[in-house]
């Protein structure tokens, strides 16, 4: 970084990741990479039926195999105290009971863990796992969503809580769209999308004492995980330590604790040795959640001049038979457009499958596929430009609750994006643009996600060498959390970023929520800001009379002394400050929380995605040739990492739109596409030039940094932008994701 810039603010810079070097050189340690003395390896055996009971388990051959130390099943597993109690069925993310691994003989889904083989080496464990043979009494299973869709039910949490957003909702007249002169009704399907971050789910469980557990675990919530395991094992929270210093991508699958984690803890208990368990890629499809298969129906009505009269949006999403997973699929429909009549109906469908979990842009990305496709379909019916149609229904207050937006710069996003994609090249008539053998089309899709802020603590310590260490028990699943926290602190302290370190991913640090819901910078960033302010306040105190009346922004920490920017003569050395502090590090911890702003304002981030696609006239292949994603996400703390978030979201959206979808053979209730050769995530060649533009205007209502959140809006709206572009290219409207060539050839 240039000295010149140091004079200015660091927030907003394209600062390189503070941990970039560690990551690219392999020095960053992920959860499976800790070397503990006596560490042994586990391999899980999965059931081969979808529902029923295990009637017998033959583990003899596995036990006799070389290197095997134990084969743990429901027959010999140490009891998990928390499993017996009917505990806290109301805890998020689900109502019900998370799968109690090795608790009894029941099978709830295919490939459910039924045994854990522990051996000296990974190869020995994996080999022996193949030797475990189970006999079952199978019950008839129900896994086929389409065949059972009519069994969808209102989630229990909505039944219990009349204020839950998942309840039936009618604004204006119920199904008011039906009264409009121009109407459309359409059904949309979204196939299950599986969590496949680069890093496989992994854990090392280590009982350091009979009542002290340490886990190196790939999670998004170190505190939440600490609480969950403490409860399971009847321990005080401080006896459970959770380490997740680096996480190799998570996208939501680390927001729940999964059976394999407890399996490893059970094994470590039984063997009294640290146990490492890394899922196989195939197990990622059944053991750690996924974006649920969702069916949606939209009824939309408008006047001939393009004013929405009504929208009815229904959805049914998959869940398991033992937990109710819910997400906010229908929220965007309630608040995005001025429509006097809006009805929403949210249902879930319990099947004999594993529990789904949030995946980036959870619910909203699924809902936006239906809503934003329908907006495009309606614009086509009205013979209106789809952007013009959206502008005619733009709203300056939240129509859901009539509150003003904290900020909303979506129009600016439309404009930026339209210019950059070359929206004026789009033809109203589908199929009119061609480039050799390829049809060319343009599409857009809008995304939104709540600008959430939670409560978090942060600690700031000024050390003897003049550097500051910050700590908070958040995680960094890839967005660059550590980097932006350093930037925020650098500005708050008036210090160069090189002198600041931010530590995370450790449950012994001050409490912070999970990394999820695009809220980390809003929540933890605010805590860091307040901790730095508090640290300065403390220094000011320790500095005595000379500093007493100084403004905080006038205080500078550099070269081992505290001085006044306005008067360099006023200074005190760090050594003296420490003396005043009884020779201790100067150490503050603060808690930062939102106020009552949510009662007065409606707070959202917004995005709009533009896609240019090419569809081969003869083969039905689709290639996205250009994308532009624009976001109103408040203050952009780091344009480089924020830009990477947007690009990553766009690529994820390409996968959602074109390639990703897990297929199950319902005769067996087993997935048939369950590795990365069969389940296609986009490769480099599928990712075109992706341009990102931010409005970059602060929203100080959401938080004192002015940030609103980026992670989710990066993907919400991408899939419909691509689906709409395909329609514009070909005149074919595909309402079932992913849009593979076979669907375009049909």
């Amino acid at each position, binding site marked *: 970084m240039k000295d010149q810039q140091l004079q200015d603010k660091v927030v907003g810079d394209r600062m390189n990741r503070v941990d970039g070097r560690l990551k690219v050189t392999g020095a960053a340690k992920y959860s499976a990479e800790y070397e503990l003395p006596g560490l042994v390896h586990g391999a899980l055996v999965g059931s081969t039926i979808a529902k029923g009971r295990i009637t017998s388990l033959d583990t003899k051959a596995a036990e006799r195999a070389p290197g095997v130390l134990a084969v743990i099943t429901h027959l010999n597993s140490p009891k998990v105290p928390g499993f017996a109690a009917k505990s806290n069925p109301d805890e998020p993310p689900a109502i019900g009971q998370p799968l109690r691994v090795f608790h009894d003989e029941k099978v709830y889904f295919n490939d459910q863990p039924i045994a854990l083989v522990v051996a000296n080496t990974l190869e020995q464990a*994996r080999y022996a796992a193949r030797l475990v043979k189970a006999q079952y009494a199978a019950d008839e299973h129900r896994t086929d969503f389409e065949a059972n869709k009519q069994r969808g039910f209102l989630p229990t949490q909505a039944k219990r809580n009349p204020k839950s957003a998942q309840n039936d909702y009618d604004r204006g007249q119920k199904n008011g769209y039906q009264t409009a002169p121009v109407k459309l009704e359409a059904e949309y399907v979204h196939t299950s999308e599986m969590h496949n971050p680069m890093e496989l789910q992994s854990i090392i469980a280590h009982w350091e004492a009979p009542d002290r557990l340490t886990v190196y675990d790939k999670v998004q919530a170190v505190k939440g995980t600490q609480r969950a395991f403490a409860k399971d094992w009847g321990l005080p929270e401080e006896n459970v330590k959770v380490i997740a210093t680096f996480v190799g991508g998570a996208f939501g699958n680390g927001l729940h604790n999964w059976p394999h984690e407890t399996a490893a803890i059970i094994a470590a208990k039984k063997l009294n040795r640290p146990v490492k368990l890394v899922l196989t890629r195939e197990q990622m499809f059944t053991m750690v959640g996924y974006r649920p298969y969702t069916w949606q129906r939209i009824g939309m009505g408008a006047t001939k001049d393009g004013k929405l009269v009504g929208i009815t949006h229904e959805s049914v999403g998959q869940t398991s038979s033992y937990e109710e997973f819910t997400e906010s699929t229908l929220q965007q429909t309630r608040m995005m457009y001025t429509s006097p009549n809006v009805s929403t109906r949210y249902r879930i469908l319990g099947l004999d499958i594993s529990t789904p979990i949030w995946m980036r842009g959870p619910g909203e990305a699924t809902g936006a596929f239906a809503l934003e496709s329908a907006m495009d379909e309606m614009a086509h019916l009205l013979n209106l430009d789809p952007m013009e149609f959206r502008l005619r229904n733009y709203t300056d207050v939240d129509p859901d609750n009539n509150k003003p937006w904290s900020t909303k710069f979506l129009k600016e996003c439309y404009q930026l994006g339209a210019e950059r994609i070359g929206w004026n090249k789009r033809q109203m008539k589908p199929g009119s643009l061609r480039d050799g053998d390829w049809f060319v089309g343009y599409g857009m899709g809008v995304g939104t996600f709540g600008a959430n802020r939670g409560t978090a603590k942060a600690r700031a310590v000024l050390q003897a060498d003049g550097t500051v260490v910050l700590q908070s028990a958040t995680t960094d699943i890839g967005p660059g959390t550590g980097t932006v926290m350093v930037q925020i602190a650098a500005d708050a302290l008036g210090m160069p970023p090189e002198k600041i370190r931010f530590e995370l991913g450790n449950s012994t640090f001050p409490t912070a929520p999970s990394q999820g819901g695009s809220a980390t910078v809003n929540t933890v960033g605010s805590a860091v800001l307040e901790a730095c302010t508090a640290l300065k306040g403390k220094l000011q105190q320790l500095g005595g009379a000379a500093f007493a009346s100084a403004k905080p922004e006038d205080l500078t920490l550099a070269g081992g002394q505290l001085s006044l920017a306005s008067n360099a003569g006023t200074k005190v050395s760090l050594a003296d400050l420490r003396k005043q502090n009884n020779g201790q590090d100067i150490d503050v911890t603060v808690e930062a929380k939102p106020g009552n702003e949510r009662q007065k304002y409606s707070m959202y981030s917004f995005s709009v995605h533009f896609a240019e696609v090419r569809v081969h006239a003869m083969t039905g292949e689709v290639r996205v040739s250009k994308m532009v994603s624009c976001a109103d996400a408040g203050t952009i703390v780091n344009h480089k990492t924020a830009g990477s978030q947007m690009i990553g979201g766009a690529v994820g959206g390409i996968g959602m739109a074109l390639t990703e979808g897990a297929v199950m053979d319902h005769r067996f209730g087993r997935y048939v596409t369950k590795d990365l050769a069969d389940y296609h995530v986009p490769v480099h060649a599928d990712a075109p030039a992706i341009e990102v533009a931010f409005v970059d205007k602060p929203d100080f209502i959401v938080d004192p940094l002015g940030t609103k959140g980026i992670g989710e809006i990066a993907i919400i709206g991408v899939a419909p932008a691509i689906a709409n572009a395909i329609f514009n290219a070909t005149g074919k409207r595909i309402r079932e994701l992913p849009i593979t060539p076979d669907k375009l050839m049909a």
Partner: protein
Amino acid sequence: MNQFQYLRPTKQQAAIEALARTPNAQFIAGGTNLLDLMKRGVLEPPRLIDINRLPLGKIERDNGRLRIGALALNGAVAEDKQVLERQPLLAQALNAGASAQLRNMATVGGNMLQRTRCSYFYDTAMPCNKREPGSGCGALEGYNRMHAIFGFSDKCIAVHPSDMSVALVALDATVLISGPKGDRRLPFADLHRLPGDTPQKDTNLEPGELITAVEIPDGPFTKNVHYLKVRERASYAFALVSVAAALSLDGNTIKDARLAMGGVAHKPWRLAEAEKSLIGKPATEATFRQAADIAMQGAKAFKHNSYKLRMAPNSIIQALKNAASVA
């Protein structure tokens, strides 16, 4: 994966004998297919005979033929000057397969002997006659989007996944084989077989036989060739349908033609009748369409792969157009 014995002979004869001595032993070349199958428990060979020390990696031209050693790497073959000059269709087909990393490990022998990608074959908890004869064909009534439209039986509807093999069958290649009973030559078109009642047998190789090389006769197909591969992502995916097309043109008249399809049958699918229909005709879309119609005679689809009945002929037309550079 199971425990296995590992041998790395330096002599061809020793390799062949080592294989013959142990039932279910396997040669291992690049290992890019075999190791995956072992990790998934599909194959559990008690012995692996690593053939990488055998001197079978050469690419040479001799007597009007290009001879490519069985251990030549896919990546190296695709970049070889003589291959590019004499058999550019083969280079295109190789480059359409897998990824650069895999092509740098995978060998020519291993590529042609790679096993099907049928999901039922890969999952030991599902039925598959190819993996476990008599257990049934999971795909027949199951998820068969990737499956065959030609030459299948009620025992097996899997397809052969190799791209390279589609070019080799079109180019009249010959496989050179060495086995316990001596050396022999086999037309490439006869290497792979249709499933019939014994889908567990992919090829007509005898137990213990080693592929040592493949030979391609020089031909006129040095310019107007195209390998078209249709897939749902731009790279690193097996073909939904692929077409190898080679034309020899005199002005706009087709003097000779080669045509084969991948992703449609248990073996690389040569389209001899369609080729014949092209000869002597002008290189026009109408000619190509007629050839495609002939090629598709007898095609039959299952529940999830009927799209291939349109995608395949379209792909033939497109590949021929690209080969002829007809806009």
